[in-house]
């Protein structure tokens, strides 16, 4: 600030005595250099923007995973087996009129040190009819009971079921993304431990089976 004031005072003084500053110490030349650099930079930014240089980079394709093949996601060991579209949920109850139950069956093993109900976040069905954070109905296929938690080191086959409008176009094959998380001893908010940063890690393509006629698209 002090330096700027000194330079400004000197310029004012020189303007009083000289018709031009060009012959002195290059003040004017330096200023014009900055104008040229700024203009070229602005043009470069504009051209880059027009050419799509600031658009999001295309996401790299996820590794493909075969149905039935297990993968470790951090919290879980997951093997996605099959998908069905039906008029009934996995527990046998009928879905409301105008809806169908899209169900993904998977085998999960809890790899953590405690029972966990953070099951639904392990899988994501790539279908616009299913909101990204829509929680599925979860069923333990061993006996058809509602699944509320899975215990450490105990592998179970489970069904995750979403209700979707009847007639929804289902891609063939249906992409199902497996999500990983990382464990933090201290999270950024409270400093407590937990599983964070969900990130797609692999994709399984499933042929959707239709065990009954009603759920067929």
């Amino acid at each position, binding site marked *: 600030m002090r330096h700027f004031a000194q330079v400004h005072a000197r310029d004012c003084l020189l303007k009083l005595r000289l018709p031009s500053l060009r012959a002195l110490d290059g003040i004017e030349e330096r200023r014009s250099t900055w104008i040229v650099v700024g203009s070229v930079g602005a043009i470069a930014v504009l051209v880059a923007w027009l050419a799509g240089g600031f658009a999001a980079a295309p996401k790299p394709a996820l590794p493909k995973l075969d149905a039935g093949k297990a993968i470790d996601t951090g919290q879980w060991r997951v093997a996605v087996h099959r998908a069905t579209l039906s008029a009934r949920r996995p527990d046998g109850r009928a879905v409301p009129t105008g809806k169908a139950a899209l169900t993904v069956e998977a085998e999960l093993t809890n790899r953590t*040190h*405690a*029972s966990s109900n953070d099951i639904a976040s392990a899988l994501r069905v790539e279908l616009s009819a299913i909101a990204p954070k829509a929680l599925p109905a979860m069923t*333990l296929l*061993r*006996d058809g*009971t*509602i699944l*509320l*938690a899975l*215990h*450490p*080191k*105990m*592998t*179970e086959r489970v069904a995750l079921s979403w209700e979707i409008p009847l007639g929804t176009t289902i891609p063939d094959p249906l992409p199902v993304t497996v999500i990983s998380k990382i464990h933090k*001893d*201290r*999270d950024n908010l*409270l*400093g*407590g*431990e937990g599983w964070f940063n969900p990130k797609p890690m692999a994709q399984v393509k499933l042929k959707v089976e239709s065990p009954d006629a009603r759920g067929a698209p």
Partner: protein
Amino acid sequence: MSTLAAARRRSAWRVLVSLALLLAMRESIPNYDGMTGPIVERGVLGEWTQARRFAARADTVLTARAIRTEKTGVPESLSQHDTSGVWLVVDATAKAVDEPVSIGKAQILTRDGRRYARTERLGSTRQLSGAELQPGIESRGVLVFELPADQVAGAQLVLADSPIAILDSELQLDLRLAAAPAPREFYDLVRR
């Protein structure tokens, strides 16, 4: 000039030492769970152990391969449930201290530090954790868990009146399982 350089060096060292101290403090203090964790009261099978708002006693322990139960309030709705491990059934008694309270957390703590929550597959039939405890009145019931057979030996029963016992009592009762007992084929939760 040399004085200025020396002053800059001293400032840089001060910043580095401060950062190192901050990092050491951050890494050495307990995390949030450690600072706000439960206050553990230890006990053993067959003895009363006192928590702040309740007292409990684990009476007997058994393991089984399958359990028969019924839906709460629906007679004749018998169903049988198996497991990929074994069922661990703890018969326990509990009472409140000053005011009614429920057991909000029931877990098995294994030798390797894993925690198995009470099963929620069986409804609330005869479950102690579903009952409201009254002051001075003993309530008896079962707490049922499923866990791998190799996790049974050395298991402890964990009880608290809240799922997240922040700076409150948590009972850890040694179930005296030096070795895993041979599991029954079947345990009837309806007609014991």
